[in-house]
């Protein structure tokens, strides 16, 4: 059987590979790419993968997304790998690293938390990994979240 590329190569830009299957749209949301952004984005979901069974891939053309920004993806896709592409070649390749502290990405599920009031406040969380699960602890009220992808703003 003839091998086919699911999505075409990009000449220049950022490729985010090994995203947990079904999480590509959430990755774009974390990166702030959505309605109103003019970036050319190609996206593949549920692509067969040797390592992961199924995975998602996101390619953002003509844009090198910063490492700190990309590391936020680790919240929902801890195994994601990043390829920065120049002239169709991989210029730099790295794995995302979980940031120890994040601001403005998650909301606190505790309805009685100050971050869910009318006060001018950005939610902040301490992040840690336990048994391969990402745990986020609210900087303000201390509430711990295990299912972080449900609370992406």
């Amino acid at each position, binding site marked *: 059987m003839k091998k086919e590329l699911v999505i075409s190569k990009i000449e220049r830009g950022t490729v985010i590979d090994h995203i947990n299957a079904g999480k590509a749209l959430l990755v774009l949301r974390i990166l702030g790419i959505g309605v109103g952004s003019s970036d050319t984005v190609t996206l593949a979901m549920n692509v067969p993968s040797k390592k992961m069974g199924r995975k998602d891939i996101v390619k953002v053309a003509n844009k090198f997304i910063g490492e700190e920004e990309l590391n936020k993806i680790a919240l929902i896709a801890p195994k994601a790998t990043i390829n920065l592409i120049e002239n169709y070649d991989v210029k730099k390749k790295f794995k995302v690293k979980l940031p120890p502290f994040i601001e403005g990405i998650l909301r606190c599920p505790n309805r009685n938390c100050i971050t869910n009031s009318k*006060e001018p406040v950005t939610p902040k969380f301490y992040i840690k990994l336990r048994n391969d699960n990402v745990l986020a602890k609210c900087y*303000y*009220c201390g509430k*711990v979240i295990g299912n972080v992808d449900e609370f992406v703003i």
Partner: protein
Amino acid sequence: MRFRHLISIDDLSKDDIIHILRKAEKFEDVARGLKKLNILEGKILANLFFEPSTRTRMSFETAMKKLGGDVINMTAQEASSIAKGETLADTIKVISKYVDVIVIRHPLEGSARFASEHSEVPVINAGDGAGQHPTQTLLDLYTIMKECGRVEGLKIALMGDLKYSRTVHSLIKALNMFNNRIYLISPESLRLPEEFLEEVRAEEVSLDEVIEEIDVLYVTRIQKERFPDEEEYRKVAGSYRITAETLERAKELIVMHPLPRVDEIDISVDKTKHAKYFDQAFYGVPVRMAILHEVLL
């Protein structure tokens, strides 16, 4: 100054806690009126209580005044009119320009941490919703130190509402830090949340099993509103009630309670050698003196 604000007991190291307890000891004579000190003369404390409080507010006021400082109060009624319009952030920005230290109690969790971000002066958390109440924890530890002679290596039972009690949530972490053996005694529906059980070493037991060996019995109030109906509440509350008879098999144990009690400790206990809850309320004064001294000088 070891810390600028006091928001959560988690922000303090074991060393910081010992430092405050030792300092409180030095202020005890002043708290008892045996000695006079004016080291906080010219300083003003603002009590911002968005929720009612008697003991905490008054003991902060007493602590400040006994060290020569002055106090301004915002009552719950004034607080509610502020809450209608102004943000907490703005209230804090304004008041921190008037005073030298702010003591805050607010119904939202995380409010004290948030207030400290907007304040030009130290902020002390006097309870944020079901969150933290660090000065209560410090006075609890002080009571244990004074009455048991140490805060380490003791057997301590926490009894009552372990699910919603912020006092218990703060205290249990501190007790764990000091290598105490912790026993938990509560109705099934008011057990300590799993997230705490993962962080601290504690055993769930019945009072009967441990009454002869424990050094401290820390009792908390079981609130009626936590139960679906009155009958269920009465059944549970009745089985978690301490009387002089309950303590007959006890040895040197002390009974503590953050107060106010409703009927979880019978007045028959008051006259026994075990009752230390009123002393505990007094110890709030030297401990708060130590905290005010720490953040103001």
